[in-house]
């Protein structure tokens, strides 16, 4: 029984981690086409990743988009989470559900809707459209993660600040914000990774000359079937992993999700 359990566990782990390992190894191939097992080992495709101009520009756009839309989502999400938690407004539950909707609705629908009814009719530039789409996707994460850390902060701590002479605004910045700092950082990291790895919404909103990295990789693969995409995938996976592990070590990220 014990042996069977361990065997099952091993199979599940192989199933989960296997593709990641295969891609990493394929990226280290010495051959001309994407293949596993690889034709010998070399770092030439890893090196190639940094030489492809479209990868470079897409990488920086993705980074900027991830940081920008996460910050916007936090600016919208922190006050929303605060108001929902502290003022218990009418229809709080409904508002919470609407705010959470973009997590539940498939990204492909969100992307199509944004394109068809916002971007095309209004003629919004591609970069702005991407920021709007990603921000809408990330607000729910920001609200939920920040709410989780607000629940642990008692309201009388804010009243104590007021009784010592602070205005409501000062008490928010001097008492509330510092105490939910780790929640905000956690929300930032989750938002960053979600945006950076986002495909369906970006697929509709990217356009000529402006593309995010995951979309850029898809297009690249349509025309070039070489191992550089595998090498890039491996690099990105390692980057995401490093961020999450660092966050877990510093903040205990798993408390918030």
């Amino acid at each position, binding site marked *: 029984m014990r042996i069977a359990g361990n065997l099952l566990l091993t199979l599940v782990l192989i199933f989960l981690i296997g593709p990641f390992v295969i891609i990493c190894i394929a990226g280290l191939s010495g051959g001309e086409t994407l293949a596993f097992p690889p034709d010998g080992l070399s770092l030439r495709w890893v090196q190639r990743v940094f030489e492809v101009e479209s990868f470079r520009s897409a990488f920086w756009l993705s980074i900027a988009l991830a940081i920008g839309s996460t910050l916007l989502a936090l600016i919208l999400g922190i006050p929303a989470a605060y108001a929902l938690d502290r003022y218990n407004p009418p229809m709080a539950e409904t508002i919470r559900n609407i705010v959470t909707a973009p997590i539940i609705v498939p990204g492909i629908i969100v992307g199509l809707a944004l394109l068809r009814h916002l971007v095309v009719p209004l003629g919004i530039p591609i970069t702005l459209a991407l920021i709007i789409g990603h921000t809408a996707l990330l607000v729910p994460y920001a609200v939920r993660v920040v709410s989780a850390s607000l629940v642990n902060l008692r309201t009388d*701590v804010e*009243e104590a600040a007021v009784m010592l*002479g602070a205005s409501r605004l000062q008490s928010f910045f001097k008492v509330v914000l510092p105490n939910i700092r780790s929640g905000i950082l956690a929300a930032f990291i989750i938002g960053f990774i979600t945006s950076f790895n986002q495909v369906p919404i970006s697929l509709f909103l990217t356009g000529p000359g402006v593309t995010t990295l995951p979309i850029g990789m898809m297009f690249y693969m349509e025309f070039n079937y070489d191992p550089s995409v595998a090498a890039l995938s491996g690099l990105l996976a390692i980057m995401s992993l490093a961020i999450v592990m660092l966050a877990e070590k510093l903040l205990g990220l798993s408390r918030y999700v």
Partner: protein
Amino acid sequence: MSDFLKLDKLTLSYGGPTPAVENLDFSMGKSELVALLGPSGCGKTTTMRAVAGLMKPVSGTITLDERDITRVSANKRGVGLVFQSYALFPHLSVFENVAFGLRLARVPGAEIKRRVDAVLASVGLSHLAARQPRELSGGQQQRVALARSIVVEPKLLLLDEPLSNLDARLRLEMRSELARLQDELGITMVYVTHDQAEALALADRIIVMREGRIEQAGTPEDIYERPVSIFVANFMGFENCFELTDGKLKGIAAPSFETGSAAGVAWRPHAVVLGQGPHTGTVIGASYLGPVVEYLLSTPLGDIKAEAPASAPRHAMGQAIAFDLPQAGAVLLARP
């Protein structure tokens, strides 16, 4: 100045059908310590929050130091508040918790250091200045909360059940420390509590509240020795309180003294005479309390608590026993 703090016809409501506090009038002098005493739900904490500015009154005015503060926001009233839960800032050290109010007031750094050090010394916490609140015991957190409130020198300090989260020994210790601080600094204090012993020990004046109104106000001696109603008498440890109808007790012969128009009469357990007297009861309970034994008697009047010295011969359960409710030790109560 006997009107340092004055509440005039104050009415407070949480939006329910009956107001939490109705037409409350009271005033207190500078450097006085007044206790608001009553069971939970009597409106004492609500009143305190209104004085603090954390709750807007429906009607009425609050005057502090000859200034109408009814519509002044909480952070500009010069009123301090020590919370029942202490409400320390979890992200700041003890020193920074205490310095918080001074920093907001843009007091120069050197003066902040001097004043925080001084107040921490006076509550005996100098050695813990660098600690985080979560590293402190309940009693220590309480002292930080107190230090944080008095360092900004409020005109009025409100304390919301400040000792209720401490264990019995610490409570006594903090009680005498509060008394000492109030003595030394002469701060005007309103002390909210449901513990009559705390109120008696600390307050210059006690205001007993019931269902949003003042039931009785007076010195601790007034309240303890001359309660005006059965409600206050019960609260002040008169275990045996009885209603009078036309000056008579129900169930037994009227006490042999003039009751006038009183609505009730009360005896403390030690005032009941056991072993002699015109009445008879059955022992249905006995508790050994150290110096005395407290008996519970079943009588035609209802259950009565009586005390006898522990050295006296014990009465057995079920035993019929004579007792008297003498005039000496009886307290007449004007209201039910």
